[in-house]
């Protein structure tokens, strides 16, 4: 049986999913209880988990779920928004095709033909979507949206440090959508405390990678006590008890082994001929003596704790106890590698000769049993040699399902933070002919607007820029020196041109050859900017008005941040192709790590605004249509987020206020205090568009009612 794949069918599916998902979305969202076939219950507000728990049968639904889960693997967040956005896009498409159906009907086409025709149309639309996603979106992000970005890092001249208050805001907004209402504040506070306790001043992204990778080892769930009993514990909790515990004081030396310490009776692949009973007894005796000697030696080296990834024989445990060495056995591979990463400890291999120094030891501050609800754990105070100071989260909750929800949410938050610490590269083509109308005027005009935005944004969202004020002078001087350097280079005007659009932070190390290139292919429009820039440079060096101080300083930071993160590994950011007559410019830029925007649909409204503006300037009708479609669909998200609000916080009010602010170049003030990652949002939008393209390109769904056949992959090597 085959069914026509159509926007309508997909819309129906998406709408059903939307009704389920939208009720869990946003700060007012509620919980969903899932039962497993085994009878366990699980609480969740995680969109991905809900979609999977539904076990959907409809093929289009399954395509959507697959797309969502692949997106989640990448970004760790945004499943619910995915569905809502997709649904609105489909709704928009449906409306468009409905409108055009009238024309088709007048032509009196056959139904079958009509289907094929509409398929062709969708094909075209999906092509347009693809070009939009690959080119237009990036350029809009880069040119317009980036000026609204805030950063989660409190910026100083040379390094970036995570700002406590903005990360609190970020996490609170994240957990608002993930955890039940009565716990989200507590959990987000716990999480924030946790990673600030684990961090040292020098740690960066690697700490989040570590927390993400070893999440299971770093938390312990306890059922029974209320959630508010959850806590953070300094040190590492191993999920097992001591085999032998010998109390010891002071700093304790530990060794780790990955094999049995007692020499085996026989090794694999060998044969042991027993000729007499005494031979057997002496070999047994030798093994025991050997074990005894090794343990004595460890004791002599002041080792007080033995960590083993395998089960040790009885005798090892016995001799360890005699020598006052505590033993922990059966560590998982992950635990072993976590301890190795924290302490740089490599496994110890017992050697034949007993006179050797054990170099592979590490120190722990303490090692003691830790009891949580009558279950025993090993509590190690590892002394860290890397940027991660070990701490553990003990998560409490009345039921296992709730603890799991919190665990998942925490894990997702680590993923999200990990993503946030990466730059995201954008690349797009800008046609020279376009530059006249799209670039020159808005950039020169918006430059000031942007500065204002950032400046006022500072005040309104309380980003700790206080320190930057102090550094203001230094930075300014630096900027000036930069400017001087440029002016020394003679081609300074052009350099400045590259300097001014703050969204494309150019590297300063452009060689003159490339500058020449730039010079040659510059369009008249760009010269106008240069004209604008010249007085600015003057003003900077001579007048030093306060607003400009601020602006250049922020510029400078922007530059430095990107410079640090990229470490100059990227080649010059901008290059123009001379070969083509049309004079295209390939731009590549990036969303800097740590970019955030206020929550509550801010990103969507901004993108909506710029997309509608862009759509008005588009020449081709298709491009206009696609831009408008996406722009309108984006509004669906703030609409849902505000559905329970009224009066000042209702959606129309919010929307008009934001539009007004954008038109008059005022800062967009959000009613909500949380923050969210821009990169996550951007990735979400691209994933949704890709999913939509996938759905649109299907014209027929064929259902097969038999067992899937095994496909034998024949290696080409076999045939050869």
């Amino acid at each position: 049986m085959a069914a026509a794949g159509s926007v309508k069918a997909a819309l129906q599916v998406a709408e059903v999913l939307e009704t389920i998902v939208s009720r869990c979305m946003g700060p007012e969202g509620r919980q969903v209880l899932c039962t497993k076939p085994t009878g366990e219950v699980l609480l969740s507000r995680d969109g991905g988990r809900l979609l999977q728990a539904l076990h959907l049968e409809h093929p289009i639904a399954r395509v959507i779920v697959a797309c969502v889960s692949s997106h989640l693997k990448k970004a760790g967040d945004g499943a619910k928004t995915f569905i809502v956005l997709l649904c609105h896009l489909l709704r928009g498409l449906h409306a468009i095709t409905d409108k055009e159906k009238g024309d088709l009907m007048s032509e009196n086409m056959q139904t079958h033909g009509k289907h094929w025709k509409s398929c062709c149309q969708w094909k075209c639309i999906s092509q347009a979507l693809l070009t939009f996603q690959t080119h237009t979106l990036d350029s809009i992000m880069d040119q317009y949206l980036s000026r609204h970005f805030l950063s989660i890092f409190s910026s100083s001249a040379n390094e970036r440090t995570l700002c406590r208050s903005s990360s609190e805001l970020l996490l609170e907004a994240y957990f608002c959508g993930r955890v039940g209402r009565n716990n989200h504040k507590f959990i987000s506070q716990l999480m924030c405390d946790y990673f600030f306790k684990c961090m040292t001043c020098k740690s960066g992204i690697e700490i989040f990678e570590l927390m993400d990778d070893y999440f299971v080892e770093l938390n312990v769930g306890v059922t029974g006590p209320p959630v508010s009993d959850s806590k953070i514990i300094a040190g590492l909790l191993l999920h097992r008890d001591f085999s032998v515990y010998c109390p010891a004081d002071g700093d304790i030396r530990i060794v780790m082994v990955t094999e049995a310490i007692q020499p085996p009776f026989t090794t694999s692949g060998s044969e042991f001929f027993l000729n007499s009973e005494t031979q057997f007894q002496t070999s047994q005796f030798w093994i025991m003596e050997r074990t005894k000697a090794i343990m004595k030696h460890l004791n002599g080296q002041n080792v007080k704790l033995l960590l083993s990834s395998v089960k040790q024989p009885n005798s090892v445990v016995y001799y360890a106890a005699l020598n006052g060495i505590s033993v922990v056995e059966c560590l998982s591979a992950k635990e072993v590698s976590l301890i190795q990463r924290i302490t740089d400890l490599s496994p110890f291999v017992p050697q034949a000769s007993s006179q050797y120094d054990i170099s592979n030891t590490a120190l722990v501050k303490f090692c003691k049993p830790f009891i949580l609800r009558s279950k025993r754990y090993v509590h190690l105070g590892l002394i860290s040699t890397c940027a991660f100071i070990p701490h553990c989260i003990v998560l409490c909750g009345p039921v296992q399902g709730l603890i799991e929800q919190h665990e998942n949410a925490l894990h997702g938050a680590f993923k999200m933070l990990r993503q946030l610490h990466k730059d995201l590269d954008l690349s797009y083509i800008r046609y020279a002919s376009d530059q006249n109308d799209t670039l020159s005027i808005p950039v020169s005009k918006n430059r000031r607007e942007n500065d204002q935005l950032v400046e006022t944004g500072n005040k309104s969202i309380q980003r700790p820029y206080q320190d930057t004020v102090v550094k203001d002078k230094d930075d300014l001087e630096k900027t000036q020196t930069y400017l001087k350097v440029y002016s020394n280079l003679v081609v300074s005007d052009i350099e400045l041109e590259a300097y001014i659009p703050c969204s494309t932070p150019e590297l300063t190390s452009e060689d003159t050859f490339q500058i020449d290139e730039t010079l040659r292919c510059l369009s008249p429009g760009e010269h106008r900017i240069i004209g604008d820039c010249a007085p600015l440079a003057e003003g900077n060096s001579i007048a030093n008005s306060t607003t400009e101080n601020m602006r250049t300083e922020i510029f400078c930071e922007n530059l430095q941040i990107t410079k640090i993160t990229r470490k100059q590994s990227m080649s010059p950011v901008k290059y123009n192709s001379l070969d083509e007559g049309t004079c295209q410019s390939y731009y590549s830029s990036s969303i800097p790590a740590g970019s955030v925007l206020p929550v509550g649909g801010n990103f969507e409204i901004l993108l909506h605004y710029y997309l509608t503006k862009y759509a008005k300037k588009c020449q081709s009708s298709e491009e206009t249509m696609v831009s408008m479609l996406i722009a309108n669909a984006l509004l669906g998200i703030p609409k849902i987020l505000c559905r329970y609000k009224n009066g000042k916080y209702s959606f129309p009010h919010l929307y008009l206020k934001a539009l007004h602010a954008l038109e008059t170049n005022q800062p967009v003030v959000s009613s909500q205090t949380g923050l969210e990652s821009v990169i996550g949002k951007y990735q979400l939008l691209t994933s949704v568009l890709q999913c939509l393209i996938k759905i649109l390109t299907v014209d027929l769904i064929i259902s097969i009612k038999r067992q899937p056949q095994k496909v034998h992959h024949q290696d080409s090597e076999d045939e050869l």
Partner: protein
Amino acid sequence: MSRLEAKKPSLCESEPLTSERVRAALSVLKGIVTSCYGPSGRLKQLHNGLGGYVRTTSQSWALLSNLSVTHPVLKILTASVQNQAACFGDCGLFTAILCCNLIENVQRLALTPAAVIRLNKHLLSLCTDYLKSEACGCRIPVDFSSSRILLCLVRSILTSKPACMLTRNEIDHISALILRAFLLTIPEHTEEHIILGKTMIVPLKGQRVKDSVVLPGILIEMSEIQFARLLPFKKADVLKVALFGMSLSGDFSDTGEGTVMVSRGVSLENAVLDQLLRLGRQLVSDHVDLVLCQKVIHPSLKQFLSTHRVIAIDRVGGTLMEPLSKVTGTQPIGSLDSVSPNSYGSVKNVCPAQFGFKHFLHLIPNEVSICSLLLCNRNDTAWDELKLTCQTALHVLQSTIKEPWVLLGGGCTETHLAAYIRHKTHTEPESLLSDEGCTQTDLELIAEAFCSALESLAGSLEHDGGETLTDMKYGHCWSVQAGSPAVVSWADLLSQCGCGLHNSQEELSWSFLKSTRHPIAPDTCLPQTATDSAGSLTVDCLTAKLGGLQVAVETANLILDLSYIIEDKN
């Protein structure tokens, strides 16, 4: 090849709490738990058609773990109550009833879940802050220099479990035993961290309750034949003990990964037996008096040891190993060759003991922190119930050491708390309404729901058709028997409040719990003399009750927040 079957789609239910099915199920559950609550609670017979004996119980843990609930909402509720009971020991029924009451009361109100949850949370923190504060009028400090309050605590627990089928005398006996057993687990020489010992509960069914005893040390059960063969002991000051954590049966299992080729005529069994006997000779020459082995001892070795007047006991089992190593003060030996003389432990004395039809070897340690509670009751089900109760009591005593406070029992804490919340929300609602989005009316409605949930909890202690009252001064709970004449003054009709702290001759005024009253400011200072003079108080464990309160409100919030249920039908 395995059969592949497509997964069935799940069932998605929207707004579960509004459905009639869930409401009915919740009210049935509430009926079950409410009727079990308190000293006069009704017993439940749990009968599993598939086997096992019929269990008579009124304890939450036994009840809920045997019930099979099907609806996911109920699963959440029962799981959370069971976890609470397992974690805090006591107050499982309290949690269950409070949670059901809260859900039921809130559902009647037409408020959004968001507002309900937020306000419930505020009220909960109001309660917990109050119960933890110095000014709290319903908690009593525990004086460890006298056993009075601790004994009251244990007795309250025993009386609240009617399925143990104990008479008043038996309750006194058992509560004294439990307290003694608990005191024996406190080590004599303490460092900075006190590590409590353990009480081993030894079953002896079919005997009279009065035959129960507490003994310091460990009882190892043995068969009658073994018991008869036990030799008279050498009398020494201290007996040397060797404790083996490995098998002494002469098996040779771990040969490594390679192969072992044995020549003809070589007998490994003999070799190992030789080793064992050598070990035996070493034990004898080291003057070991008692050999204990977790696993099996080879008969020849046993024979050898007994000819040298060494007692050998094998198959002790894994559970006894840790207490044994603690009692003897040694680590289990894990090697046949070269046993270090340091690894022998010692006990003060060993004597055979016979209780009822069972035979034991009694190990009396030098320093007591492990004791055995030999618990007797008439039949299986009553014994199970009594054992659970004893464990609860021991657990509660342990948590009382950590937090040396007890709460007033008999419903007085609940009514007092309700009065306090009413008073607080009436006089200073601003402090609770700091969040946006809630009005004063919302707060009043939720506070009323919360307080009446607490009060009906206190009211459910009464099962015989009587009425529950509260006084207007302390906010305590008073109950009056059914069918009392209405004309007599309350002061004559009532005698004592639920906890036994106040009596009716104190010039108090009363009103029915269910009637609407003006909020009163409950008297928050406890008269010191009253707590000292009052005879027998009914008190509850602070930790358990506080935990129960928190879990109940959290679970209720959780259930009220549910918007969908997705049931996996595979």
